[in-house]
């Protein structure tokens, strides 16, 4: 199993091949379009994180001491970033999720999307991912 850090390095590597913002964003848009991210029954009012601009839904489940995250958004670019976040945080141990950071987002040139003023729900989504990790970590102890 790859560690969170290994996955993040891999993503940074992939993004380094893009020459300009257009290629970067086209890749994210394609990620956003193709990935089935969440089962419809979890796209509920309870799982919604309201940003001012776009909405995000997050659902978590634990199996074999690893958390699986599924998520969705009504905006495609937000969804593309969700896909990247899920690739790094899903299928990992709660403790590893708690120890991890999201500095790689800066390295791949998407920092502005994680700004608290952006109001797209992503900052709250990361907070929610960490909260799930805390909750499951407590269960394990």
């Amino acid at each position, binding site marked *: 199993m790859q560690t969170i850090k290994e996955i993040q390095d891999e993503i940074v590597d992939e993004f380094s091949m893009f020459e300009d*913002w*257009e290629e970067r*964003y*086209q890749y994210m*848009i394609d990620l956003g379009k193709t990935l089935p991210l969440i089962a419809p029954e979890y796209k509920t009012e309870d799982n919604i994180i309201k940003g*001012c*601009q*776009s*909405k995000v839904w997050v659902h978590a489940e634990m199996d074999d001491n690893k958390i699986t995250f599924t998520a969705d958004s*009504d*905006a*495609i*670019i*937000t969804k593309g970033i969700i896909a990247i976040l899920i690739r790094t945080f899903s299928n990992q141990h709660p403790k590893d999720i708690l120890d991890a950071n999201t500095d790689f987002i800066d390295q791949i040139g998407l920092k502005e*999307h994680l700004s608290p003023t952006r*109001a*797209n729900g992503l900052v709250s989504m990361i907070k929610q991912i960490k909260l799930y990790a805390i909750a499951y970590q407590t269960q394990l102890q």
Partner: protein
Amino acid sequence: MLDINLIRKDFPILKRQVNGKPLVYFDNAATSQTPQQVIDVIVDYYSNYNANIHRGVHALSQEATDKYEAARHTIQNHFNAKKAQEIIFTSGTTHAINLVANGFSKLINQDDELIVSALEHHSNIVPWQMLCEKTGAKLKVIPMTLEGELDMEAYTALLSEKTKLVFVNHISNALGTINPIKTIINQAHNFGAAVLIDGAQACPHIKPDVQALDVDFYVTSAHKICGPTGVGMLYGKEEWLNKMEPYQGGGEMIDQVTFEKTTYAGLPHKFEAGTPNICGGIAFGAALDYMNAIGFDKIATYEKELLDYGTEKLLEIEGLKIYGTSNNKTSVISFNLEGIHPYDVGTLLDKMGIAVRTGHHCAQPIMSFYNIPGTIRASFAFYNTKAEIDALVSGVKKAKMMLS
């Protein structure tokens, strides 16, 4: 005719690059840019005569007081208020509305009704809801039509002897519709109701005459009219301002203070507690001078040209829908691309150096009416050009291609 190239030279920010592209600034309805003439006034204030006003006997204080009061006169003349004391400096439109809503808390009771329109910014809804909660008065809503206009028949039907206050924006921030405020005011007055007009979106485009309108309250912000943020004004008819409770207590707004009883100062000071935004007030006056030197008639003619051009070019894009299609609107185009979230389009346009606003524009009831999460709003000012609109149109086409 306006010499746009010459006008653009007044705005240093328009030379900026954003994300490596020349800035195309189409978020003027959120805030306008500031000309060098106004920036110079701000620099001059802090460089030469920064002092607290209305109390010092020293030269700087006197100079600052004179300039601040001169700005009040400029504003009075601009809006054609009968008296200078009917102009209250506020921190902006929101502050002005809250001041009036609070001022009415003892003039309203549970049998009264207030009328709001469906086209309002949240700042012209929430303070009144708070007033209703406090007093038990009821809030009635003038519905809107698909074109983004007010349903005036419904408005007439809502009015009654119970109506105490009507508050409507002069121009909708989300859609650009110019509301028939003269009719709204006249009809309300037939029932003895007072009317507050939120002019935040109107003042960059129109020079309102508060006496001709016979409006009871007119409010606006300086930063929409080439002035600085954090300053605005409330025009109120003297008889209303005298009846209203002060909003904030503090220095400057008092006559006599003892621990037993405080008596309030007269207008306008009764509503201007604390040290105001002195520099902002003076710069507000300078901004109006700047706009008047260009001329509101010329501004309106040119902006109409931009609106017509932008509307025509944007509508050539397949799947693009404009919200707010009144024949009577200012240079605001609120739109969406079919099946595409406005946030995505706004994000990509930003990458191309084009600044638009996306989202619900603090007017969620309008978005609910159209059943959309938000729109992309391009709002043009007199310093924008058709070439910039061409850049927007090709930007939208490119975003559409990337997102489809």
